[in-house]
């Protein structure tokens, strides 16, 4: 082994990084092929691929509100997630800050949060429909309520875990509350906030598909439901891949963003 020259060494390392995932993916497709061979209603990998090429050759067609390209549906879902998630951040992060900083608010809100957090986000849909009267804001409401908990809880945990040393510095220097917040609490808490944001976007993306199946309209969730009614199983499988890939991209994006705020990793 020691006789390998550096470039061969590198090639080997790359191969070791690529080969296992390829084997995994290959086994997965093989399993899928076996299942589709025994269950005629499940399309084969090949047929699904052909269908996907066709689907993505024109993702942005528009034949009226009930027949739009998959691109539009994905964008509609992302927009709902962005709005619901943004509102949750707008409220959840400051709320988490207050809970972490002031014992009184923690004691006041902790019981409510513990009670409501384990509730399945979809259970909030009827309340949203009742109060907001329309499907669209109700779907956003479900995203909001499902993504707010991780943000509140992680932000609050971050504030309580600010190292005591920093707070001692604040006391010795007689820093004002404003400076304590901007110079110490915010930067020290940011990595925790980012963890909350990352968890929240994962939950939000998970929930949007289910919520849209119930509310209808355009969106990747309802699109899946629609294809189920059309009995187009290939499209359903494609949608599963699309949802998975977008979820993965969101996760990677936020992990990269979080790295920029982590001072311990420097």
């Amino acid at each position, binding site marked *: 082994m020691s006789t390998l020259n550096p470039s061969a060494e590198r090639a080997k390392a790359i191969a070791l990084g690529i080969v296992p995932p390829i084997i995994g993916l290959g086994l997965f497709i093989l399993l899928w092929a076996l299942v589709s061979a025994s269950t005629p209603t499940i399309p084969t990998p090949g047929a699904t691929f052909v269908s996907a090429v066709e689907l993505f050759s024109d993702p942005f067609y528009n034949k009226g509100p009930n027949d739009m390209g998959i691109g539009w549906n994905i964008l509609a879902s992302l927009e709902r997630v962005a709005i619901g998630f943004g509102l949750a951040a707008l409220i959840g992060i400051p709320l988490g800050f207050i809970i972490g900083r002031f014992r009184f608010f923690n004691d006041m809100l902790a019981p409510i949060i513990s009670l409501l957090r384990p509730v399945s986000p979809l259970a909030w849909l009827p309340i949203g429909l009742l109060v907001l009267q329309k499907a669209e804001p109700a779907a956003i409401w479900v995203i909001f309520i499902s993504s707010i908990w991780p943000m509140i809880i992680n932000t609050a945990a971050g504030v309580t875990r600010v190292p005591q040393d*920093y707070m001692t*510095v604040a006391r010795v220097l*007689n820093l004002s509350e404003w400076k304590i917040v901007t110079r110490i609490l915010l930067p020290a808490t940011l990595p925790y906030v980012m963890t909350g944001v990352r968890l929240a976007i994962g939950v939000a993306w998970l929930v949007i598909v289910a919520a849209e199946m119930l509310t209808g309209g355009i969106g990747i969730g309802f699109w899946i439901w629609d294809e189920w009614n059309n009995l187009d199983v290939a499209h359903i499988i494609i949608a599963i891949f699309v949802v998975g890939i977008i979820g993965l991209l969101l996760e990677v994006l936020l992990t990269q963003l979080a790295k920029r705020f982590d001072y311990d990793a420097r």
Partner: protein
Amino acid sequence: MNAYIQLDNVGMQFNTKRGPFIALRDVDLHIQKGEFVSIIGHSGCGKSTVLNLVAGLLDATAGTLLCAGREIKGPGPDRAVVFQNHSLLPWLTCTENVLLAVEQVFGKSESKTQMLERALAALELVHLTHAKDKLPGEISGGMKQRVGIARALAMEPKALLMDEPFGALDALTRAHLQDELMSICAATQSTVIMVTHDVDEAVLLSDRIVMMTNGPSATVGEILHVDLPRPRERLQLADDAAYNHYRHEVLTFLYEKHHKTAA
């Protein structure tokens, strides 16, 4: 004449889960302006507690503490603290860390440029001008400690309180910083209280060494006047009879009179 920092009959009791714990009792200590006093004692005897009381980070449960004739009621910019673990904010550059302290003291009376000049001057005093824009994570432990000292000095405090400031550093860096500290103190005429567990450091730097008895209920055991001329040179002092006599006194106190059995 009244002392600059004055502790009379100071006692400190902590309320712990296992009931009250008396850390200090009857601590009497009078420190003159411009004096360099070190506090030495075995680990856990209450050295940091004394320093934190003077810093105003703790409230004494007995006795009185005065600084410049006024009761110490909390932390104040007149008493700057240098921590053992530097306690710099990792998201601020060296300059910004110092500036944070400067703004707190001079924010009302000076312009932004004047304050920046103060911060840079303090960094220059500890020979760190070249690292002024670095983050604490990018510099060595000794450099961080120097930024901590610069931050304290930039506040132009009446007293400098240091809790084992060089304890976490290697011997060479420590010696270097001790020399720097001596020349800074000579230049600024600072009043300094320094906690240490290093006998050589105490003798080399101090005008007086306060030796504490073991806790619980620790108090001032003996006070040693170190009457060595300044400026002091560590190399010359190594063979100096007086220096070695003082060293011996402190060692005798620590290891004969108040020997601590290993816990």
